[in-house]
């Protein structure tokens, strides 16, 4: 053991730096103990308590260095330790390399914190449903409207949020709101449509997308799409957001016509909404795909007529092949969009009077499946983002000789997968390769301006052997006629 004590007069370092230096020095191999500190009374006591002898006269402005090394004199440990000390003291007053003075920005960890940083108008929430409530309250408290993309939000919380929004003069779009367009900005799943005079209130995301795409195809733009969530028109929620959206669009000078699109609402809520719509200055067209009501394509046509615009022939892309399913073969509707599926079933039931539930020997066994349903999305992404499950279903249906017609939807736009035809077209080609009798109809919901490019997608799907339709109703009717053996 060997002790070394020196006093460096007037060499000031702050106490924390010196504690760090002391620790680094003590941790060096060969050093049994070390303290480097300003010579205050307290520090001198501590150094002496460690068994060092501090020279008299060392004051608070002097640096006291005390080092104890393990080796004997001349072993080199002491020189090495003293050299290391000089390095440590030098480094202590050197700025860190790389990082700026203030370091990286700390990310916002709550919606409230993010809202305080940006002068935003709306919060888009897609955290898991059980965790939505605090984020949504943050947004409302900060004066932001809320779009809740997530599902699985408890009904009581939906009502509480919509009441809180009403108190603040704001709107909650959702939960389970897939689509909104605000002043040209698409939130969630939304198509790139031209701006224009139509405002849409949507309790159905894909219903709104079908509507805006058809209007766009007719040369009519959409100003805003306000989603309200699939449960808004239930008796419990009682159209709280739909009423607020209707009023907001009515007050919007750019909106000349409002279209309300929804899965079939509860009857008493439908009455409430119709009553409210009657009191507005802006005309309202309803698109409620249910028996006795217009389908979405018919509603789009009605909207065009109300605006005094011509109704076009809806785009379609016919495949070269003309398969002819045998009699008694079934139709399989495999959908990513819930409302598109419901509309197809409604048309099948309403137009042709089929009993889809019948499973008798003679019954064709037509089926319509929504792969966006909770049963298929628990723990995995929506089929508009992740097509895996539906691709499997396409393969499975093709291998079933009882299936004569496949009816599929493809929904394009922001948020959806970047190139759905890239996986679906080969799957269709594979499905029809050994099945000259299998017909495939695709309802393609998109616009030429969508990131995926509607026409490019249509060409690929068509080239694979599918008849492609911009109107879901037309695609459905075509599929029905094909399976009935009465092609148009």
């Amino acid at each position: 053991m060997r002790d070394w004590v020196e006093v460096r007069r007037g060499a000031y370092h702050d106490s924390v730096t010196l504690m760090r230096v002391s620790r680094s020095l003590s941790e060096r191999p060969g050093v049994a103990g070390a303290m480097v500190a300003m010579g205050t009374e307290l520090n001198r006591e501590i150094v002496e308590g460690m068994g060092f002898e501090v020279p008299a006269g060392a004051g608070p402005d002097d640096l006291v260095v005390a080092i104890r090394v393990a080796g004997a004199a001349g072993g080199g440990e002491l020189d090495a330790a003293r050299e290391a000390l000089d390095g440590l003291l030098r480094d202590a007053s050197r700025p860190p390399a790389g990082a700026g003075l203030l370091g990286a920005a700390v990310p916002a960890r709550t919606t409230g914190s993010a809202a305080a940083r940006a002068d935003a108008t709306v919060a888009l929430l897609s955290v898991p449903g059980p965790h939505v409530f605090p984020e949504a309250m943050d947004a409302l408290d900060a004066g932001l409207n809320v779009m809740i993309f997530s599902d699985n939000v408890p009904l009581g919380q939906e009502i509480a949020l919509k009441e809180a929004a009403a108190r603040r003069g704001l709107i909650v779009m959702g939960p389970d709101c897939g689509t909104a367009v605000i002043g040209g900005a698409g939130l969630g799943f939304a198509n790139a449509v031209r701006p224009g005079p139509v405002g849409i209130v949507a309790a159905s995301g894909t219903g709104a997308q079908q509507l805006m795409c058809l209007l766009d195809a007719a040369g009519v733009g959409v100003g805003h799409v306000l989603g309200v969530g699939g449960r808004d028109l239930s008796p419990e929620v009682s159209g709280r957001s739909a009423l607020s959206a209707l009023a907001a669009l009515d007050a919007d000078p750019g909106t000349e016509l409002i279209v309300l699109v929804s899965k079939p609402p509860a009857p008493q809520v439908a009455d409430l909404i119709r009553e409210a719509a009657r009191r507005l200055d802006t005309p309202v067209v309803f698109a409620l795909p249910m028996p006795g009501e217009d389908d979405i394509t018919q509603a789009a046509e009605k909207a065009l007529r109300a605006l005094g615009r011509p109704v076009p022939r809806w785009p379609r892309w016919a495949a070269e092949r003309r398969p002819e399913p045998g009699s008694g073969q079934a139709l399989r509707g495999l959908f990513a969009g819930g409302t598109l599926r419901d509309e197809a079933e409604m048309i099948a039931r309403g137009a042709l009077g089929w009993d889809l539930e019948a499973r008798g020997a003679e019954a064709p066994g037509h089926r319509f499946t929504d792969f966006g349903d909770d049963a298929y999305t628990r723990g995995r992404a929506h089929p508009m983002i992740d097509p895996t499950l539906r691709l499997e279903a396409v393969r499975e249906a093709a291998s079933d000789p009882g299936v004569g017609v496949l009816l599929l939807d493809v929904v394009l736009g922001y948020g959806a997968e970047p190139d759905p035809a890239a996986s679906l077209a080969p799957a269709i080609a594979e499905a029809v390769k050994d099945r000259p009798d299998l017909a495939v109809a695709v309802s393609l919901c998109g616009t030429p301006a969508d990131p995926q490019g509607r026409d490019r997608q249509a060409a690929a799907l068509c080239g694979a052997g599918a008849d492609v339709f911009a109107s879901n109703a037309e695609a459905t009717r075509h599929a029905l006629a094909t399976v009935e053996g009465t092609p148009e």
Partner: protein
Amino acid sequence: MNDQRHRLGGLLTRETRVVAAGVEVLAGALAEQAVPVEAVDWRPPPAGTEQALAAVLGDPGHADANARAVRRMVTARPHLVDVRPAREVLGLDAGTFLHAGPPLEWERASGPMRGALMGAMLLEGLAATPEEAERELARGAAALEPCHHHATVGPMAGVVSPSMWMWVVEDAEHGGRSYCSLNEGLGKVLRYGAYGPEVIERLRWMGEFLGPALRAAVRRHGPLDLMALIAQAVQMGDELHNRNRAATSLLLRELAPDLAAAEDVPRDLAAEALRFAAGNEHFFLNPGMAAAKACADAARGVPGSSLVVAMARNGTEFGIQVSGTGDRWFTGPAGVPDGLYLGGYGPDDANPDIGDSAITETAGMGGFALAAAPAIVRFVGGEVPDAVAATQRMYEITLTEHPALQIPLLSFRGTPAGIDVTRVVRTGILPVIDTGIAGREAGTGQVGAGLVEPPPGVFTDALHALAEIA
């Protein structure tokens, strides 16, 4: 109502700007459309807290309650008005001692807490030797009560006995009063659990001479605006917990003329008092804590508020109190600070976290103002950006920015002030607390300084309690 531009907060008329939390592809789709997006770095809160969070945040009065509580906290105007013995101002009886943190009995008391209580027994003449003091305390001869139950705070062990002199602070805005003892200096001192003869001798001198001298000076000076002083100190590099150098100097600058002019203080005593105070960089810690306590107490008792109004440690447990849950403590095991050690001491010598001084963080100072105190950032184990990040992180769990305490390095942004229980639970971000480290053995004194975090469970417990009454 008639102004349609403001319908839905201007949703349909203003440029669309979005705050996005959750699935990244949706934020990405907005960026693709050149829509401005502020993304939230969202992470799930602990399992089992969803319903409690919804209950508390869904209470229609919650946001207003928090706004009211934190407004009271940051608009408090604590003034130093007097210096008086605890016996008089707190009505403390012989044989009753106050201590830091949530309620505690001798059996569960840590080394430094026991040491400080033993010292207090010796100081009050209730025992002649440390051994006798220990025996007496062990058989329950003294009554122990938390400082916080008496509008008082005490650093480290925080032991207050009847003969100790207290800073008396009054909130000129809301009228509350708060108290803190006089700081003894560094090294072997009672608050770190030392009770040797030099400790007791110093305390006797403080009671006999320093207290009366300071009383004369403060009374002669008149009410001294502590918040104004603290605000200046923050701009001079103090965070008011582990660095009180500027505030101490400012306090002495205020009091020195009155001390010199006080007719009943002999010149040599005035000089000695000034020398004692000037020789202790933490002399202001105690009046600063009393000021913070006055601010925090102003925010107490607002129904529905999830604002934290006290964080305190007794060396065994860490406890918090919340505005909306009255005097109830939510406690968990105190952690061991992460820091730097004096001399030959190391983590094995450290006692678990102790002291009421986290009242500074409660009121928006201390660790929350770390970015204002670059001189001590190396306690964070890092560099200036780490200190800035520590303060920045605290904005995520606080309700407001302090209007008076501004951080030059952050372009004079106010310090993060007013810890919200719901935000702590939601983000998992725990308050950062600067602290001294006491030796584990009674009688050791200070062994280091550093940073410490509360046990996360105290915040979830408080949340569930708030949910029950929401």
